[in-house]
């Protein structure tokens, strides 16, 4: 029986806007009051795992871990200043040190997510806790396991949060992105989502917050795990910032 929930992740999980409308993590807290949310905007898995490494030995069958594994390239520079994630270097010397760190740990960073998800899988076997994972993307660089080892203790959702966020837009808006051609499509999509004045809590509408909660509940209760809703959001844009034809 699950007693505690611990959430790790980035802006898809950060509990800043909990009271604007019901959120997936708020719904989890309603059901499991011992819910702790470490989600932080801009955080990469490297940041999240600093906490997870400390928590790991204490986990047991009463724990549910919910992990948003974001981009492995989000390096948490200098552990003594964890809050300055992705900050610009303050000097040329610091920039050189950052480059040296990236060059030294280049492969560990590129393949970082595979090791992180492998450790989560091993943890689910050893600690007997339940682990639910959303990836930011489902490309190879994001996940090695994908959904191949899903079972009662370990679940990777087969839709990425990046896709879910994008697919919420009505089709006609997404179609406009495609007109730009494959090379520019992603950049235009990101720009459109960034410029959207219809603000979404954690990049998703209330309806998909509910879906996210139901996905986790489905995993825990051994019930159906619903898919994200598509075509449910229409953006509005300031024409000075973004031209939407």
């Amino acid at each position, binding site marked *: 029986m699950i007693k505690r929930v611990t959430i790790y992740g980035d802006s898809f999980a950060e509990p800043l806007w909990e009271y604007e409308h019901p959120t997936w993590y708020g719904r989890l807290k309603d059901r499991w009051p011992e819910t702790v949310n470490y989600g932080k905007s801009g955080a990469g898995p490297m940041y999240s*795992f600093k906490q997870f*490494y400390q928590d790991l030995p204490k986990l047991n069958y009463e724990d549910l871990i919910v992990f948003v594994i974001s981009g492995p390239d989000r390096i*948490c520079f200098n552990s003594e200043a964890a809050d300055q994630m992705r900050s610009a270097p303050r000097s040329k010397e610091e920039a050189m040190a*950052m480059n040296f760190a990236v060059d*030294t740990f280049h492969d560990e960073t590129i393949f970082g997510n595979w*090791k992180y998800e492998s*450790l989560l899988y091993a943890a689910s076997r050893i600690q007997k806790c339940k682990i639910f994972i959303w990836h930011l993307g489902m490309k190879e660089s994001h996940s090695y396991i994908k959904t191949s080892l899903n079972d009662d203790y370990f679940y990777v959702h087969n839709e990425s949060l990046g896709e879910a966020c994008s697919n919420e837009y009505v089709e006609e808006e997404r179609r406009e992105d495609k007109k730009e051609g494959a090379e520019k499509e992603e950049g235009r999509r990101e720009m459109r989502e960034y410029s959207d004045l219809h603000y979404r809590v954690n990049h998703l509408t209330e309806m998909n917050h509910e879906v996210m909660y139901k996905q986790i509940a489905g995993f825990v209760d051994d019930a159906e795990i619903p898919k994200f809703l598509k075509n449910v959001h229409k953006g509005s844009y300031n024409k000075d910032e973004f031209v939407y034809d």
Partner: protein
Amino acid sequence: MIDIYGDSFADPTWRDGQRPSHAPVDTNFTPWYERFGEVNNFAKSAVGPHYCFQELYKRYKDYTKDDHIIFIISGNDRIHFHIPKEFEREDNYQRICPEDILWVERKGHTILPGLFQKNSKNAKIPLIKWYDKYRPHMDYAYRTFKEEIENMTEKSESFLYMISRLQQCKVTVFLLHANCSYMGDRLNDDLFYLHNYSLMDASNEEFIEFDANRFPRWELRQNHFSRENHDIMEDIIRTRIFKPFKKSFIDSTPFEHHEVPGSFIYD
């Protein structure tokens, strides 16, 4: 095919005389890694999992049920620091080994051990210049990735376990320090075997009247093991069943102790 990754416990250059040896090593028997027919041996003295995984990443997706990976997870703190092109050397004796740089937690920065410094007979000028120029960068890199380095064994063994699941190949793991392991032998099965005993301890425990935490100044044994424990290594890999290493059978007299407790020479 069998592929071997690891440090001096598997380094094939001890066998073929390429190693810049300080003392003659007993090579009158076949080391464990040459007893399995054709193998690819990527092991290299002094390296850590950081370097070994750079090798593994190149080919892990090619492994199938017909393959067997043997992986020695050595010290987390052996960082394969970046070497800019200007410091790359062809000459074996001047080539920089980035793992020679050590992080000292109580000092909070990296050090170049005295063994390699200017006045030492082991001094390598490129290594000294490289360290002088990049020392603050190394400290910064270490501090940035501190938790990742400290937990590298846990991540490494988990990823090796995952490779055995997804590629369906056999994986056999040895640890330089078993106390760094998270998995231990708890997930061992037909495809995955982790030998839950420190190779470092096994090597030291060969000596009669072993002086705890003291290591030979110059190694006289092939890959830090006597023939008897090369036999055990072979046996473990073939059977994938726990078998203890042989203890207390080597006279330590010819082995000069290292003057610094806790120092281990990986030359």
